[in-house]
């Protein structure tokens, strides 16, 4: 048996495609999704991979141990040019298969658990309150990314890890440089700067043990012959610092835009604070901020609903499209804070924004809590918040998968 479609086929759908609306996938994805659950798409380097838009198929593939997340494999697809940078091969935790993945993930589970997120809630509420006070004191207009959406997750992750927040301008800029790079060389340069910074920070923690934060704790667990080498620790620090602030800040920003552009839904949320957790999950579903639930490579031939994913073929699960599978989400392009039905506190959680399988987002409890606090504090304190530029004038990220805006001017 041979793969029916040549890898170089120029007629294949080119992935990725930019959104024209901040909370909806491109119309090209929508047309693709209407044709079936799996599709062959062409990447920047001319290689072709599977793009999964069906929710059930995505869950099965992401939970299938025959699908590898190992980015150091030669057959692992580089979905964007930046992902060809050596710094991304491998990424800690999400770029490893069991057993190494499971060992590192469990090492971090206590720090990112539901209980930990609940314990941090009060301090995040205080932080959000202080940031809104600052905006009100300064007066309109405000730039919501810099004044609010970025400092919340950035301060939370730096405190959790034990990274000095005083260095935030550096690590935030390098993270954007890494995640928004248009070339492997640019990504590598930004990633290397972050690596050197964290390497030095960990050296300081080794010299002065007993500090607070995850990194100080893990310094004591480093064993060059064991489950956590020093290089593993730097790699984990890098992944947690990057993963801990950029996507959450952009999810706050795009969530605010989505709410402001759906005043009836914002009013429904404000009139019933009990709907907040479900509303946050509905925003996570709609915005699908990373646009991707996961990328894998098949290690064996896998049959799925009449399709055969061959060993060595890459698979990209689209979160924006699996989150719009009408079999799971009726009228899927509609934003509805009551979609989950409110029968159960977890009823809005069927979206695949955080992925599925063993690699489902480590920080999801923390992210949900930060989002709940960010939206409720902001709209409680500034109920007449509005965009200070027209929606189509927002400077949006382009050419990649991570969605976002460069700035978010607001007034009241």
């Amino acid at each position: 048996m041979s793969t029916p479609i040549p890898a170089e086929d120029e007629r294949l759908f080119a992935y990725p495609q930019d959104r024209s609306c901040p909370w909806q996938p491109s119309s090209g994805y929508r047309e693709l999704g209407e044709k079936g659950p799996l599709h062959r798409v062409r990447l920047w380097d001319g290689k072709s991979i599977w793009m999964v838009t069906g929710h059930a198929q995505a869950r099965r593939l992401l939970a299938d141990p025959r699908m590898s997340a190992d980015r150091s494999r030669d057959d692992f697809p580089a979905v964007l040019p930046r992902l060809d940078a050596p710094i991304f091969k491998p990424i800690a935790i999400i770029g490893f298969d069991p057993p190494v993945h499971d060992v590192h993930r469990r090492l971090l589970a206590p720090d990112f658990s539901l209980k930990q997120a609940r314990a941090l809630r009060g301090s995040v509420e205080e932080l959000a309150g202080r940031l809104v006070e600052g905006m009100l004191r300064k007066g309109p207009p405000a730039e919501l990314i810099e004044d609010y959406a970025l400092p919340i997750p950035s301060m939370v992750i730096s405190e959790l890890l034990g990274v000095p927040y005083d260095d935030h301008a550096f690590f935030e800029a390098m993270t954007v440089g890494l995640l928004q790079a248009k070339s492997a060389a640019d990504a590598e340069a930004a990633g290397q700067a972050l690596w050197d910074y964290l390497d030095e920070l960990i050296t300081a923690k080794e010299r002065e043990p007993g500090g607070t934060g995850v990194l100080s704790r893990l310094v004591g667990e480093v064993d060059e012959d064991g489950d956590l080498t020093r290089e593993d620790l730097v790699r984990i620090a890098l992944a947690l610092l990057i993963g801990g602030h950029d996507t959450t800040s952009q999810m706050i920003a795009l969530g605010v835009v989505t709410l402001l552009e759906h005043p009836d839904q914002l009013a429904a949320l404000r009139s019933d604070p009990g709907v907040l957790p479900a509303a946050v999950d509905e925003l996570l579903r709609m915005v699908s901020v990373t646009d991707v639930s996961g990328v894998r490579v098949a290690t064996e031939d896998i049959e799925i609903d009449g399709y055969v994913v061959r060993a060595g073929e890459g698979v990209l699960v689209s979160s924006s499209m699996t989150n719009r599978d009408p079999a799971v989400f009726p009228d899927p392009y509609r934003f509805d804070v009551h979609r989950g039905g409110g029968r159960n506190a977890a009823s809005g959680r069927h979206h695949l924004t955080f992925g599925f399988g063993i690699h489902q987002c480590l920080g999801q409890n923390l992210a949900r809590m930060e989002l709940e606090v960010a939206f409720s504090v902001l709209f409680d304190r500034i109920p007449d918040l509005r965009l200070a530029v027209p929606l189509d004038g927002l400077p949006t990220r382009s050419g990649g998968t991570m969605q976002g805006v460069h700035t978010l001017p607001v007034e009241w």
Partner: protein
Amino acid sequence: MKVTADRRRCMAAGHCAISAPTVFDHGEDGLVVVLDADPGEETREAVETAEDLCPSRAIAVAPAGTGPAPVPSA
């Protein structure tokens, strides 16, 4: 209804403790703890939501009217 959770599979996502807080909790290590291995039928919807949402397939629930819970399946 018989409920089991496999701590070797658990990745501490937390959905079960949100969905069915009288049945599931998490220990200091962040991993699942079953509080009630034989909860009443009134919790079935919540427990089945927990089973469905568990990303690492660590939870198993015996269907109504059957015996003990099966081993969690992938």
